[in-house]
């Protein structure tokens, strides 16, 4: 998203936040339009990818909602509004193909049978009293399979070429692969509802509430990843907006814009990339370029989060915080509790905790080994979420090992050096040293994160030490 898009969304949020009657429906309609608008404009993906996002969301709702809530009449109205929005988008593309901001023209001959098939499936899932038990794991597997395809460039290219040939009228023009805007975050939200439904922990919500949760436009493209029960509570009783709140919202939005478009963009100029490795830079410059990359990542992403939270607040919804001054934390564990908080909480809830619990329950492995497996597996998965490459896997191993070693050290230090014996100055010194060490450790991991191959990353490590 660029500055212009953000300003337009701010104006929309400011107006929409004042709507009192029919609020969830209005919000859902606008979010649906925004996801088409923001998807990069290349046919046929600019229509099909947002439409698939909506289909997956509707399936998620039908599968996770108990029958008595599914049958509420208001859900039929919400579905009609959503289909009407889709119809309006299609009409705008047919009659104003040059002017419409939503999508390129779509072949109705291909879309209408798919839409009809989908609606039959949706109604088939929604009507019966008892849903098959295989549905939640089925959708979980489908979401994970899409993840796998999207995160591996060669699989994305091959599958998009295949699907593109089926969807477009012109078999010669295979469209280029495109990013599926917001899919990762949508999938995290849907997976959370599916797993919680399996555990019997998910509160029943209406179709409009679920769709709003899944595609809420301020957080659609890059989070934060809220939890359904928290989001819906705020949607049902939005925070009142006082005249004074304008100041705090404007502050949050301008801070976000400044972090993202000024600080992060400036840091990008000196942040490490493949070319830096080939240029014979002095070790000092390489250290600086790694630190710049770490800082740029923070300012870019936390700036984006500020904007999302500011927009959410205009709409009466307090989105969860994603960052809590991570670079001021004195150790890696606290760093990871303060960096991309909603993502790490998601992985803790759905990967680390269940894995640790099942390993503990078997009582076959020593505690330290269970901790090591849990930390490394979780961090490698977080790494691979960025892309299925060796570099991201190594980045995950780096952080998993770092967390393990830091945990063991803390445990040792807690038993052997209890804090009352240590002079406050020494404690302060240790804290500052820990903060610096954590920042350096994270910055070094940027060699895996920013460069394209492990060889380049290891070359950088040697150069940093003046060895290559």
């Amino acid at each position, binding site marked *: 998203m660029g500055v212009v898009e953000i300003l337009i969304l701010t104006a929309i949020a400011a107006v929409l936040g004042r709507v009192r009657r029919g609020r969830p429906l209005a919000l859902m309609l606008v979010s649906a339009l925004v996801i088409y608008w923001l998807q990069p404009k290349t046919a046929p993906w600019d229509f099909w990818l947002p439409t698939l996002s909506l289909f997956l969301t509707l399936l998620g709702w039908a599968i996770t909602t108990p029958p008595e809530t599914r049958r509420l009449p208001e859900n039929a109205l919400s579905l009609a509004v959503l289909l009407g929005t889709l119809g309006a988008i299609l009409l705008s593309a047919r009659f104003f193909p040059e002017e419409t901001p939503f999508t390129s023209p779509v072949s109705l001959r291909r879309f209408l049978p798919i839409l009809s098939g989908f609606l039959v499936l949706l109604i088939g899932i929604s009507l019966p009293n008892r849903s098959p038990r295989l549905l939640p794991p089925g959708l979980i597997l489908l979401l994970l399979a899409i993840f796998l395809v999207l995160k591996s460039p060669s699989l994305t290219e091959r599958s998009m070429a295949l699907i593109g040939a089926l969807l477009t009228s012109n078999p010669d023009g295979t469209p280029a692969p495109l990013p599926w805007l917001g899919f990762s975050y949508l999938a995290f939200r849907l997976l*959370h509802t599916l*797993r*919680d439904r399996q*555990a019997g*922990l998910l509160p029943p919500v209406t179709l409009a509430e679920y769709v709003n949760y899944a595609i809420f436009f301020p957080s659609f493209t890059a989070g934060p990843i809220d939890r359904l029960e*928290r989001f819906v509570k705020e949607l049902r009783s939005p925070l009142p907006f006082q005249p004074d709140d304008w100041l705090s919202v404007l502050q949050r939005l301008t801070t976000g814009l400044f972090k993202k478009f000024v600080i992060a963009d400036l840091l990008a100029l000196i942040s490490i990339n493949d070319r830096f490795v080939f240029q014979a830079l002095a070790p000092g410059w390489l250290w600086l370029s790694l630190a710049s990359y770490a800082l740029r990542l923070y300012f870019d992403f936390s700036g984006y989060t500020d904007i999302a939270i500011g927009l959410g607040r205009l709409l009466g919804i307090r989105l969860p915080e994603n960052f809590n001054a991570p670079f001021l934390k004195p150790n890696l*564990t*606290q760093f990871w*509790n303060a960096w991309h908080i909603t993502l790490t*909480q998601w992985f*803790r*809830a*759905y990967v*680390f*905790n*269940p894995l*640790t*619990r099942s390993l*503990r*329950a078997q009582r076959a492995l020593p505690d330290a080994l*269970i*901790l090591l497996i*849990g*930390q490394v597996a979780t961090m490698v998965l977080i790494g691979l979420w960025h892309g299925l490459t060796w570099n991201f896997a190594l980045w995950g191993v780096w952080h998993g090992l770092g967390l393990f070693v830091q*945990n063991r050290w803390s*445990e040792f230090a*807690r*038993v052997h050096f*209890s804090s009352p014996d240590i002079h406050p100055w020494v404690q302060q010194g240790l804290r500052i040293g820990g903060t610096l060490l954590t920042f350096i450790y994270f910055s070094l991991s940027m060699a895996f994160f920013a460069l394209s191959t492990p060889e380049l990353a290891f070359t950088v490590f040697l150069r940093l030490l003046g060895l290559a």
Partner: protein
Amino acid sequence: MMHDSIQQTLSSFIAERILKQPKRTIRPDEPLISSGLIDSFSLVDLALFVEDTFGVHIADTELNASTFDNLEQLSQLILSRKAA
């Protein structure tokens, strides 16, 4: 089991087994998770201990500061689930 004795049992478990500081006492309102006193690994330990000792299940998704962050909140959670 009464509220105070639940707190006492939890306090001794956390001090001895998690913090490895048997002499330490934990105040009922002392933040456990948000302060970093109990890390994510030990949190799973605590959940297993609660399950074994009080017969109350705390789900993986509930192991965070918004479900409970001190002994008072945790013992209330245990009592409310035992009553349910």
